[in-house]
Every structure is written in C-alpha cells, then in structure tokens.
C-alpha cells in the first residue's frame, strides 16, 4: 500500500459529531502545501503510526479524547492540535485553573511581520515546560501562555477551531515551521495577483488602465481569461487580445479559466472545449501559460485528465475539501502529477494580500465585480507585501490540448504548435468595417432579445384585452340571469 508523508490521527467523533470542518481545513492546508497525507481514526491509528515519521494529533473538541498510548514509542515529528491530555511524556502539561473550554486573546505575527490579534477558543489548554520554540502569545483568564510552542520534534497549538481564515493561515505557517527541521531560513513561496474571470466584454478601457497601472509599478501579474469558443475573429475579441498581448509582454501572464460546466460532461467534450478556447487565444497571439480550475476537478477522472495538460494550475477555491474529504477523497493521483500549483491566499484583511509564504498563493480580483478603489488597494497591498511576487514567465511552462496542440516555455524559447513564437508586443490593425455576416437569419437566431420583448409586449396586450372581455361577459351573464330571475318572480306573482 502506498503511504503518504504525514498521518493525521483524529477521533471517530471528529467526523461524525464534533468538528469535521477542522479536518477539512487541515486537508485543504496540507493539499495547498502539496503534502501527501493519510488519515487514521484513533481506533486504527496504533497499527499505522509506525509507518510514519510525521503525525498530526487532532483533538479539537471535548469528545475528542485520544488514547495517548497510541503514541507509545513514536519518535518522529508530532504536531498536537487542541487539547493535549495525557501527553505529559512529550513535555506538554495541563495548566491548573485553565480547564475546560475558554475564550482567549492571541497575538501572532506572520512571517512577513504582519501582526494580528484575534479572539480564539482553547480547550484544557496545556503548556510546555521550557519550550525551545515559541510563536505568538495567548492570554486566557489573565494568564499569558505561548500560542505556539515546541520542543524537539513536538509542536503544540492549543486552538480548537481552524475554520477561520486567520487560523488556517496560522496553521499553514506553523506546519511549515514544524516540518522545517533545518537551521536555515525557510524557502518563501511567491504570491500572484490575478485579474479573475476576464471576458472579452469586460470594459477594455478599464482593463487597459488597470494593466497599465501594474506595468508602471513593474509588477508581475496574472490575467485569467474566460474560454471563448465562437467569434474569435470579431473586432471586440481582437481589441481584447490586444490588451492581453500588451500585458503579457510587460510582466503579465495570461492563464485560461476553466470552462463553466452546467451539465453532465465527459472528458472528450471538455477537452474539445478547452482546445477550442486555447486555439482562439493562440490565433490572436495570446500565450496561455496555465489554467485556473476549481478544486473539485482534482477528484474526477475526466477533469483530472485536463489537469494533466497544464503544468501550472491556479485553484480558484478550496470548496471541494468538505467533510466528505477524509473518508471519500483521494488526492494522491493528483499530487503525483507534480504540477506547479497556486491556491487562493487566506484573506486576513480587506486587501486580501497573502501573509504566508508556505505555498504559492493567488490574490484574486474580479474586475467586473469590484470597484476601482478595492482593485487598486489590492494591487498596492500585494506590491508592498514582503511575500515576493513571481512572474509565470520565470518558470517553465507547458500547456497541451487535443490534436497535438501545445505551448511550451523553457524560460528561453516559446514554442506554440511546433512553431517558435515571441512574447513581444506590436500594435495590430483592427478592422473597423468588419463583416459580421449578419443576414436576417443570423440576426434572428443570435439575438432573440427583440423577439422576446415583442412577445412579452404582445402577451401583455392580449392579457389586458382578455381581462376586459371577461369583465364584459360577466356583466352580460349577470344581466341575463338577473332578467330571468325577475321574470320568474313576476310569473310566480301573477
């Protein structure tokens, strides 16, 4: 049986009753950091633990009492989350007077010196006796304790809720620290600012201004364009691609956003759509260096086939890591691909800039849904952040499609469909008198808005007329039967 690098031990109740979201958060974090992870309920962990040298001990709810005997003889790296009951022999002892679930305040500084203060929950909080490693402080009922502490192979974080953005960012940073057993500084992964879900009908002037602003700041940035299947020769598409060509020649990189899937699909149709979209951009001189995909795509064979085709992947969300994850999902197949992956940054403040460098992160900005103030604030925050930016052009790239269509970039030579191309920008002539081939049939079938309005208007007129006629006929019926009734009454009287 193939085993992962890290074993997460959790009580059965964690999934069934208490805090499955914590496990989902841990899964999401470890996936972001590209670790192969295995999961074991405490009941079965005793037999498994000997195969691992890295264990995360997850006891984050009152019912999550794990039998410490499981860890007997374990000498590897141990990260304890939540209550540390019974782990005195690892150096974590209970703190008298701080039993039960308590609310405290913690101060914590991320590796870019970003200082935070948050309210947190702890449970039967413990303390290290003379820890060698401390990060952050925790104040509970007036007592000051280390927020994260460690000694030797063991690290301990007393928090019991890892579902907030702050706690996830903290845990990611501390997992990185826990696993970094060398004395040198840890490698810092980069962050990317991504203009997300850009369509050809996105305001080209506004897009141009945002791009120019980042070019002036000499920033590296990414534009995630939506797939276009038809009308790639239209002037609007050409103008759009003109902006993209300008961007990619000046520090920007363009990636392809995954098709929006609304119905059932198979690999062939999905691959065909992606191929069409790639061709349409390549034909307009836009060199796609990767794809932006939903995390759900990791778990389906059809979409996994598409992920194999792109060396760089931006994940637009982490929604797939829900509570089913532990029992049902297997991401080893995906991790074997060894993609260069980028995950959404944890949003610790309004700018959304990343404050952890334990994996490559993306700060997504939806141009169509966001005001200029917010967009420019995010750009400035990313630019000023100590977490470095990195150009996708500084990494090797490969993107493949059907029919041997491909793009490769070895940091020196760009090959697109077997032909060497160059990433330079030259303004193109855009035809003003474009023939849209809009004959009567075409106009009718491509935009039915007028027919729609006409039919709604016509129906409205018919409804008003019918209501009037109904009113008239009811009056007539009333008169007829009233007259009959009067006649009958008269007849009876005579």
């Amino acid at each position: 049986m193939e085993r992962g690098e890290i074993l997460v031990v959790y009580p059965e109740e964690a999934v069934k009753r208490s805090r499955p979201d914590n496990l989902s958060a841990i899964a999401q974090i470890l996936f972001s950091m590209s670790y192969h992870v295995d999961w074991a309920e405490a009941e079965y962990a005793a037999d498994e633990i000997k195969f691992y040298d890295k264990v995360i001990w997850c006891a984050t709810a009152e019912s999550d009492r794990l039998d410490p005997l499981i860890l007997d003889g374990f000498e590897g790296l141990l990260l304890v989350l939540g209550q540390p009951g019974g782990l005195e022999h690892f150096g974590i002892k209970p703190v008298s007077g701080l039993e039960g679930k308590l609310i405290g305040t913690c101060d914590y500084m991320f590796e870019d010196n970003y200082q935070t203060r948050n309210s947190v929950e702890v449970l039967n909080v413990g303390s290290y006796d003379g820890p060698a490693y401390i990060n952050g402080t925790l104040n509970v009922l007036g007592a000051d304790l280390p927020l994260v502490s460690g000694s030797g192979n063991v690290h301990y974080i007393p928090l019991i809720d890892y579902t907030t953005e702050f706690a996830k960012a903290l845990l990611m940073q501390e997992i990185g620290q826990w696993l970094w057993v060398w004395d040198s500084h840890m490698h810092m992964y980069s962050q990317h600012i991504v203009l997300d879900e850009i369509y050809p009908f996105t305001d080209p002037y506004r897009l141009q201004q945002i791009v120019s602003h980042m070019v002036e700041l000499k920033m590296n940035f990414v534009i995630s364009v939506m797939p276009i299947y038809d009308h790639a020769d239209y002037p609007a598409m050409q103008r759009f691609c003109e902006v993209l060509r300008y961007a990619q020649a000046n520090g920007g990189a363009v990636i392809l956003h995954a098709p929006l899937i609304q119905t059932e699909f198979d690999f062939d149709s999905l691959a065909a759509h992606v191929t069409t979209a790639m061709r349409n951009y390549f034909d307009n001189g836009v060199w796609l260096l990767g794809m932006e995909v939903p995390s759900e795509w990791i778990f389906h064979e059809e979409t996994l086939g598409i992920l194999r085709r792109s060396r760089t992947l931006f994940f637009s969300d982490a929604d797939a890591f829900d509570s089913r994850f532990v029992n049902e999902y297997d991401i080893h197949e995906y991790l074997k691909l060894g993609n260069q992956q980028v995950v959404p940054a944890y949003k610790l403040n309004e700018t959304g800039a990343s404050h952890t460098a334990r994996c490559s992160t993306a700060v997504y900005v939806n141009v169509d849904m966001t005001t200029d103030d917010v967009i420019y604030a995010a750009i400035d925050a990313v630019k000023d952040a100590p977490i470095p930016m990195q150009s996708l052009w500084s990494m090797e790239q490969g993107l493949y499609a059907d029919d041997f269509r491909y793009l490769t970039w070895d940091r020196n030579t760009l090959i697109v469909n077997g032909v060497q191309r160059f990433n330079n920008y030259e303004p193109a002539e855009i035809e003003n008198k474009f023939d849209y081939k809009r004959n009567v049939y075409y106009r009718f079938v491509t935009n039915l808005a007028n027919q729609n309005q006409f039919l709604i208007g016509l129906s409205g007129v018919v409804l008003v007329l019918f209501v009037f006629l109904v009113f008239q006929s009811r009056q007539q019926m009333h008169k007829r039967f009233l007259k009959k009734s009067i006649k009958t009454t008269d007849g009876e009287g005579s």
Partner: protein
Amino acid sequence: MSASEIISIYAIAAIWFMMMLNVMLSIGGYIYIYRCNQSDGHIPMDHDEYPMVSVLVPAHNEALVVQRTVRSLLNFDYPKDKYEIIVINDNSSDDTEDILSDLAAEFPENRLMCVSTDKVVGGTGKSNALNIGFSVAEGSVIAIYDADNTPEPKALRLLVENLVADPKAGAVIGKFRTRNRNASILSRFVNIETLSHQCMNQAGRFFFFKLCTIPGTNYVIRRSIIESVGGWDVKALSEDTEISFRIYRMGYYIKLLPQAVTWEQEPHLLPVWFRQRVRWAKGNIYVMMKNFKYTFDRNAGPMRMDALYYALTYSIMLSSLVASDMIFLGGVLGKIQVRLGGFSTALWGMAILVFIADVMLTLSLERNEFNLESMGLVAMMLFSYAKLWVFVVVKAMWDMLMDALFKREVKWDKTVRYVESDS
C-alpha cells in the same frame, strides 16, 4: 449554432404562432358567442313551416344510457307530428332493443322507431349505422344525436329554425356540454376542454371564416346534402369532420348556434378517454390527408383555411410540442444544452398566463364555470392533460401506419359508457 438550438427556435416560433392563432380565434369566438347570448336564438315560424325532421341515434350496446337519451329526445318542444326518432340498434348484444321497445310502447303518440341490424349489415361503425338510419328516414331535415346525449328541450327547434331561415347553411350545429363533469378530475378537464377548444374555437372559425366542423352530435343537416354526397363515409373514423369538408365543397357553410345545447357523457377514466381520442385523432388525420390538397385549390373557398388549420395542428403543433418536450427533458437530464441569448423566463410565464386567460375567457361566457377552482384546474391542465395530446396523436399515427403496413381493417372503437348517479 447546434441542432438543439435550431430545433428550440423552431419550437418556440411554432408554439407562439399556434398560440396567437388560438388567441385570435378566441377573440372572434368571444364576439360571436357574446352576440348570440344577446338573443334566445329562436327564429319563430308558423307550425306548418316546421319541416319534418328525422332524428337519427346510432346505438351499439348502449343499454346503459339510451333510455335517458330517448326520453330527452321525446321531450323536445318541437311539434310532435313533425319529427321522428330513429334509433339504429347497431348489432347490439345487450338490452338496447328491449329498452327501445318498452319506450315505444310507453310513448305511442310519438314516432319512435328502432332499426336493428345484425353483424352482417351492421356493427361496422357510426357512419354505416347513420347510412342505415338515413335509408328509412322520412324527414327533409336530418338531426343526429349520440346515444349518450340529453339535449335540452329547445335544442332541436333552435337548430331547425336557423337552418330553414338560412338557405346558405348546409347544417347547423349546437353546443355540447359535459353531463358528468364532476365524475373525476379527468372529466373536469374534458369539460373545460370541450368549452374552450371545441366550442370557442368553432365559434372563432365561424366568426372569421364562416367555417365550423360538425361535432358528431346535436346538429341538423339538409336531407338533400346527404343524398348528394352519397351518405356518410364508412372509412372515416370521424365521419363528422369528413362530412363537414364535403358540405364546404358544395358551397354551403355550417352554422354554430351555441344556444342549442346537449349534455353528453364524457369519459371519466383515462384508458377510455385515450382510446376515444386516438380514434378522433385517426379520423382527423384521415380527413386532413384526404383534404389537404384543397389548401392550394383557389376554387375551394374558405375550406382552404380549415384544411390548412388541420394540417398546422397535426404537423407544426405536434412537432413543436414534441421538440420542446424533448429539449426540456434533455435539459433536465443534462443531455442537451441550449444557449439562446435574449429569451427570458418571463416569456414562458407570459405564455402560461395567456393560456390560462384564454381558457378563462371562454369559461366567463358560461354559467357556474368561471371561478378560482376552474382557474386552478386550467393551470393543472397545462402541465398534465394538455401534454397527453401529444401521446394521443403519436399513438394514432402509429396505429395508422400499422393499419397501412399490415392492411388492417379500420375498426370503430366504441366509447365505453357507465351508469351515472342521479346526483
């Protein structure tokens, strides 16, 4: 543009075209019925001017309903000496003949005749029975009633007065209502359909084009016409529609008189209803195929419109409904994706409202039919009863294809009756 999108556009265009055509007919029908309701419909004549009328009632195993029917016919306010009732007891194996004999004995002053046939000359359908009845009829005007009808007393006099008063009218038809409308939810639907589609639609066609289709019951027709056309077509399963077209071709028109009312028993069980409607659909398709050529005949007069209307109904309406249902189903199952820019959900909402308003307009002209309950039923009909029409026509077409391939004899499928409670 994908094939499903092209089909969608076709379905949308065809459905809206047919719906607006029906809206137009409803408006015309409304005006006509509204005008009719302003008088009692009578055109008084002297006693001697009333022609001799032969009332033909084809009856095949109708023991459950025929007594009630004949008593209603005997109750006409038409001069007793001016009409005869001829019940064609068409190869019945039940008590129909005995019931009729008892009735003849009970009403000796009326001219009630029972013509019984055996399986050699009879039992092959309504057209054949009518031809047999016609051969012994004495009247210069022929009236037809189905064996499950209970016409109102004034119905015959109204029909005959209007026929005699207008030499261009080849036939005059009345309105039929559902006697057992509360028997089941199905009969409630049939009641609404009878009023909206059959009566209102007929009135609209008569208002605009002087066209009506004989409904098979509650109508009078000139004897001379039956003689000229050589009787009813025994191959036709809907002999009424078939003879209507022949009347048009002779230059007459068929008049609708909504004040002449008969009440009839409609199917209250789905299998019975389905078989009856399949027979009607087969009959109508037969007539459509027989008369479609007149659509392009400039000398055919207004009947071109009727030939076209039937052709539209059984080609465009059917195909568009099948297409839209398939696309809807395909969409729900995720097999078909249609991206048509510009169409809104509001449009479908408006289509449903127009359909409901159209039917409610018809019901507003009837007593005790216009209410919220009916409105709810109409909304239910749209998604249930109306959908059955497609299955009916598809089954009819399939049967016709099989009949042609295997040279099967076209059989008359009698509608099964049941005993109604007096309530």
